[in-house]
């Protein structure tokens, strides 16, 4: 019983931290900053925030751990690589425009 309550607190804590990160990182999208500055915000929101949300789900249903761990790993790798590719492509595009 005690343990149940503890794991509930931890999982909801992780999920709410994740959602806080989502809002913080996504709000700069509206506004006139450079693509790269927004990319920093998105790496907080979409990589770290989503990882923390999945960790919260993992604490809720530990029985499905293999798929959720796969989800965390692929999320980290894909989002980081996409960030690099977007930064590389968009900066080259801007240079050639000037």
């Amino acid at each position, binding site marked *: 019983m005690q343990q149940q309550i503890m794991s509930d607190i931890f999982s909801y804590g992780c999920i709410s931290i994740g959602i806080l990160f*989502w809002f913080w990182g996504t*709000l700069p999208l509206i506004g006139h900053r450079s693509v790269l500055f*927004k990319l920093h915000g998105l790496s907080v929101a979409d990589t770290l925030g*989503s990882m923390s949300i999945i960790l919260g789900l993992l604490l809720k249903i530990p029985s499905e751990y293999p798929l959720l761990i796969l989800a965390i790993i692929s999320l980290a790798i894909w989002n980081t690589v996409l960030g690099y590719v977007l930064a590389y*492509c968009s900066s080259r595009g801007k240079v050639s425009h000037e």
Partner: protein
Amino acid sequence: MNIVLGMMLLALLIPIYEAWQDDDIWQKLLAFASIATKTSIMILVVAVLRDDWMIGVVGVIILSVGNAALMLLAQLIKRMNDAATNYE
């Protein structure tokens, strides 16, 4: 959990609005990348909420093959920009 889902929907509206209102192609692409990740996380949350793991498997598959198309698209747009500037 319903409140969590509602907050996530609210967060999802931000990149959708951005994709609609900005004309620069890179800003649009950034917003779409954000939408892709957020929806797949929402699929996972719905799977837990409804206790239906078949939905969850779909979410995990989307996450693990997901962003490849966006990366290809970014490369393609860059090549087209380069070609256009060379032509001029």
